[in-house]
């Protein structure tokens, strides 16, 4: 089991760099997010990218609506969140079907693989089903070496085929959060 600290001070992983490169290649311009430790490295890269607009949200459903507006205005986007935020999006996810959006979200998972905090488990356990019930295709990456091809496939079908897609980045990949006193 991998462990991760509360702050992104550890050796940088390479898979967030793979994701960033894919987002750049697909000309992703708006990146709404609710912070998560698992996304911290990618968020830093987005904040430093002149071609991308990072948009911190107060709740995840704002990001779904933002991406609908971005698409209407001619830009692609991606929503970054953790699994606990997926439930906050449910009604707004209807926009992905109503507008046939090129919707892509990258979700860092909690509530699985060595979770310490029981409060994360219910939403983490239903994350995939919630997406699928909402008409979103779900792909998962559990190992660093598969992140690139999974995110590439997800971006391809989201942006080229307007097929709303979520990538679940497993807790096994990002490491279970360590709680110490």
């Amino acid at each position: 089991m991998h462990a991760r600290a509360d702050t992104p001070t550890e050796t940088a992983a390479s898979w967030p760099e793979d994701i960033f490169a894919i987002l750049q290649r697909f000309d992703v311009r708006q990146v709404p997010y609710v912070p998560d430790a698992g996304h911290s490295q990618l968020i830093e890269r987005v904040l430093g990218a002149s071609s991308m607009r990072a948009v911190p949200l107060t709740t995840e459903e704002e990001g779904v609506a933002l991406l609908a507006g971005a698409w209407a205005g001619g830009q692609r986007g991606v929503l970054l969140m953790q699994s606990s935020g997926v439930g906050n999006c449910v009604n707004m996810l209807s926009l992905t079907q109503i507008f046939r959006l090129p919707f892509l979200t990258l979700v860092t998972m909690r509530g699985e693989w060595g979770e310490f905090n029981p409060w994360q488990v219910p939403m983490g356990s239903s994350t995939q089903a919630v997406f699928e019930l909402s008409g979103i295709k779900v792909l998962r990456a559990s190992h660093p070496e598969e992140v690139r091809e999974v995110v590439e496939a997800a971006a391809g079908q989201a942006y080229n085929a307007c097929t709303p897609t979520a990538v679940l980045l497993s807790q096994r990949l990002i490491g279970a959060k360590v709680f110490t006193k």
Partner: protein
Amino acid sequence: MSKANLLERRSVVGSLLADRKDAVVVGGLGASTYDIAAAGDHERNFYLWGAMGGAVMIGLGVALAQPDLPVVVITGDGEMLMGMGSLATVGLQKPGNLTIVVLDNEVYGETGGQASHTAATVDLVGVARSCGIADARAIATMAEIEAFAPSMQDVSSGPRFASIKIDSANLERVLSSRDGTFIVNRMRGALGFNPI
């Protein structure tokens, strides 16, 4: 609060949009969408028939994508209350081309006229201002509407927020298209983007 001399919503929206030029207009779920349709269908109208609480964020997405175009969100007090956090998000992004107009009748008119929070306690202008939207105002007269409308064309001095107290009469619905793919693709076409 006095209920006398409240403005009539269709006159307000008609006046706001009379000289809209190239503006994109997003209408919040419910009567606001009917008001925008009543002012005249337009390829840059973005009608919402759902996604309650999402109007401001949709407007923000368009505004960030098209910084040289005026973007106007027109919504109701109930829809705005559901997405109140989006005012904080807008306040952080500060898009110069975004205007948010709330038609505040202090009730949920679509569902039977139940009182909304603005009828008693919530001051949406104060909320907007404290979220970082410095240009936030209450508008009470048609003369103020007419003075405010041209400012929506200024794409560098926003974001701006206006709350307009209107009467709570339920007017005959003016139904816009409710086909989302038509609405979004028509808008994209008007902005020069091809279908996939």
